[in-house]
């Protein structure tokens, strides 16, 4: 006779799980997680990790930001002083500030690469339009975080950069001046501006980002990660999210943390590139003459350069107004890409939008390089020469674009290059042949439209051909 074995008592963990399951139904969530998979094949897995790294840097921002907040005191007599105190006296204060600054830039970098990879891989296509849109909003909020946080140390560089940055708001038609005063808390950048930016940085933007980020993450969980396009390599069985993908994600985060630690130690005030430096320097003095060579953060540099390229007046508008209009239109197109790209939404190859992303890279790279005055510092002590700058930047951009084009041709057999060709034409006309930037842009626009018309007449690419 076999005696019934007494049942082993449940462990504490099992009992807790049962307790929670009885009340909140966590079993369904666990079941969901158990079957969650990340697509394999189609394209490189690397692109699936970029959202995670952005989230990682955002978490670092949250933690380091809260730690900084424990010492930061906004005010005319305290903002600069409290940051000085943090970096000079508070144990590991220098570390926290440097991490906060470095991580901010790495977060934006990761976000930009994530956004471009999503664009090129068409991961925005139906049914993920809202994931793209929320991602775009997150990008805008991240830029807002960068802009509002920049002023908080109340030092010379941040003061004048904010004065120049907010000044461009004046170009908004009709409400420009009003908007400027709302942003600054008056006609000029004063301590009232800092109070507004502080509220924006630590309350308003975090509230917004929590809401939108939750939406972005929920959409991804509900819809899963986007598979490769049907015409690309056939999918293989997916990779289990728990624990396979998550472990890889965590490993990458750990490596990001190591990179962050090394950067913070070696370059505590940033790499020293204009728009990527945060040495405290002197306290802001609104009565002092403007800080020479003021440039915004690197991710705003292309807009800054575009404003410089425009003449004082254009087509009955003020130059900055026209430049702002161009930026708004471009951003609008970018945000609405999932609805504009009909082919991708039908699951068909959509080389035009791949090329649009490459054209955007060429367009922004050239402007950013020019804003850095690369190649323009021929004579020490003199202002950089715009002609030499344009020449050098054009050749660099040409080199970069050639590498991308060869890679696309050989590795991906992509041939639709009207947009990127037009963007490169503008670079060559302006930088190498010395033509006016806007005239070169006009010619490039005509070429791009011509290419669009010609490609419409061509037969649609066949499935199975990687485009």
């Amino acid at each position, binding site marked *: 006779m076999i005696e019934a074995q007494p049942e082993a008592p449940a462990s504490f963990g099992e009992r807790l799980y049962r307790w929670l399951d009885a009340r909140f139904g966590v079993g369904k969530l666990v079941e969901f997680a158990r079957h969650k998979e990340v697509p394999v094949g189609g394209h490189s897995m690397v692109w699936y990790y970029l959202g995670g790294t952005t989230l990682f840097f955002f978490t670092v921002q949250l933690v380091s930001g809260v730690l900084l907040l424990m010492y930061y005191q906004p005010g005319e007599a305290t903002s600069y002083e409290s940051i000085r105190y943090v*970096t000079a006296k508070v144990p590991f204060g220098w570390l926290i500030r440097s991490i906060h600054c470095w991580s901010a830039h790495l977060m934006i970098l990761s976000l930009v690469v994530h956004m471009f990879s999503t664009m090129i891989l068409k991961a925005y296509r139906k049914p993920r339009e809202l994931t793209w849109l929320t991602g775009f909003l997150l990008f805008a909020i991240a830029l807002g975080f960068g802009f509002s946080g920049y002023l908080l140390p109340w030092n010379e560089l941040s003061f004048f950069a904010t004065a120049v940055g907010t000044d461009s708001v004046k170009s908004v038609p009709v409400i420009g001046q009003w908007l400027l005063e709302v942003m600054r808390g008056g006609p000029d950048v004063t301590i009232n501006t800092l109070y507004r930016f502080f509220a924006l940085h630590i309350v308003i933007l975090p509230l917004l980002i929590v809401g939108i980020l939750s939406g972005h993450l929920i959409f991804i969980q509900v819809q899963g990660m986007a598979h490769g396009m049907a015409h690309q390599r056939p999918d293989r069985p997916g990779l289990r999210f728990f624990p396979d993908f998550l472990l890889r994600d965590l490993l990458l985060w750990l490596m990001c943390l190591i990179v962050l*630690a090394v950067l913070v130690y070696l370059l505590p005030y940033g790499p020293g590139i204009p728009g990527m430096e945060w040495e405290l320097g002197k306290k802001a003095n609104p009565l002092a003459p403007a800080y020479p060579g003021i440039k915004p953060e690197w991710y705003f540099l292309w807009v800054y350069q575009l404003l410089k390229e425009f003449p004082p007046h254009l087509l009955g508008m003020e130059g900055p107004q026209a430049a702002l209009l161009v930026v708004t239109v471009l951003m609008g197109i970018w945000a609405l890409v999932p609805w504009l790209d009909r082919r991708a939404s039908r699951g068909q190859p959509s080389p035009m939008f791949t090329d649009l992303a490459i054209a955007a890279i060429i367009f922004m790279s050239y402007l950013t390089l020019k804003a850095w005055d690369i190649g323009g510092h021929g004579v020490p002590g003199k202002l950089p020469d715009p002609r030499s700058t344009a020449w050098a930047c054009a050749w660099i951009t040409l080199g970069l674009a050639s590498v991308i084009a060869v890679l696309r041709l050989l590795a991906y057999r992509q041939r639709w290059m009207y947009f990127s060709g037009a963007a490169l034409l503008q670079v060559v006309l302006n930088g190498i042949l010395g033509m006016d930037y806007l005239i070169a842009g006009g010619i490039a626009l005509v070429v791009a439209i011509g290419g669009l018309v010609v490609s419409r007449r061509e037969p649609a690419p066949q499935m199975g051909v990687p485009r």
Partner: protein
Amino acid sequence: MTVLLPLLLVLNQAGPAPAADDGKLPPSLEALFQEKDKEGKLILGDPERTYLKKLPPHTRELIGKDVDALTVGGARHLKALLALELPSQNAAILFSDNCILCHTDPESQKKIHLFSADPKATQSSEILNLKSFVSDVHFRRGLSCSGCHGGSPANDVMTADIAARWPKADVRHTDRTWIPEFCARCHADPAFMRGFNPSLPTDQLSKYRESQHGILLLQQKDSKAAQCVSCHGVHGIRGPKSRQSSVHPQAIPETCGRCHADPKYMAGYKKDDGTPLPTDQLASFKKSVHGKALLEKGDLGAPACNSCHGNHAAMPPKVSSISQVCRTCHSQNGTFFDGSKHKQAFEAHHWPECEKCHGKHEIMKPADTLISDARDGLCGSCHAENAKDNPECNATARYFRSSLLELVASGQKLRPQAEALGERGLDAEPIVASIEELNEAIVQTRARVHTFDRGGFDQGAKLGRDAVAKSEALVQAARNEQRYRRNGLLVSIGLMSLLAVAMGLKIREIGRRRARASQERQGP
């Protein structure tokens, strides 16, 4: 609310409103706007009308009366006067002064009597520059032509009393001895001057009489000697605070140099010892530490000619007083020198104190290497001649030199160290502050060279050495902190790398397990 609104409207309307100025011009003035030049174009236009409308009504009336009285001779005359764009108060002075009005009318005046805004264009003398005249300190205080020339601003013809106060024209242009007394009629009268500028001294004439210029002009009747107008000008006199003034501190070297740097003008003038008066002072001063500070850096505290020589009482400082002149700014150095061994030696030789080592107009920024017992060194050259075979002095000079050079070198070594540590994110501010203390101590130590005594010198040098020791300790502490950070980073990276390797192994193990399971599912 309905009750309040009318009440507010009533309150808003309460009180007589000031009469609005319609900007209307008197008819005679309006008529000038119809005058045309030879080419048939209107002479007066919108700019003149806009300016006139901004003037108070009574000033417009005043100009209208001038037009009626023909003291404003026509549109061209009025245009020249309005082009000055005077503030309304000064415009009132100008248009109520017949002397100015007649002497600015190109239609009625000869070129030699015509004031104009551009004397070159009208071929009149530069001293008749109307723009300078209307910015003259006297004009701006309401003291116009008649104040010096006599007559009355209300006169509309030349009267006998005009220029009667002065010597006749043939005398006054060659004999300038009358000028100081003439200006002193007002400037030496405290009661009169109190009405204009109570703080302005009234002793200029008495000082001038004692000055070298005064002695030459008033006693030796040398009309080449400088008097009031030589430095202050005639029409267009400005106070010394005005940047455009010829007696502004930065303009004084050139003003004095107009005569003193002109070898032809100064030919024949001699020093007390009979040697010709040099004319290289201005060139030397411009190269000197004082000249560079005043003229290049714009440091108005730096001395100009008058700081050492005086202005109205200008006289070359004598050997006995030259060191006192330097002491007005460099008092500490003077005090140290007074207590030094050199004081008696210098007195015995009748040497000017400061000038002996530093020079006078060409004073250079003193270098520490000047202190040297070598034959060609500052100390050595003098001692070789006057106090040779004095090993203690030589040792002291060497000690001063080496100590100062050591302190300076320490500062030069520490500053880049502080900058490098700052760039690595360490708090370099205390180090920089300590280096500033060192620099202050070096200044003190250099001043104490004038004690010519080791004990006195060391009081400054010790401060410097203490600052060096403090800075070095701070640099060392910062380097320790840097090492601590580096070690912390290495330990953290080590731990994180271990964790990463463990995770990598786990990922591989899971991968293998999945592959095995997959193979088992597929079967042999």
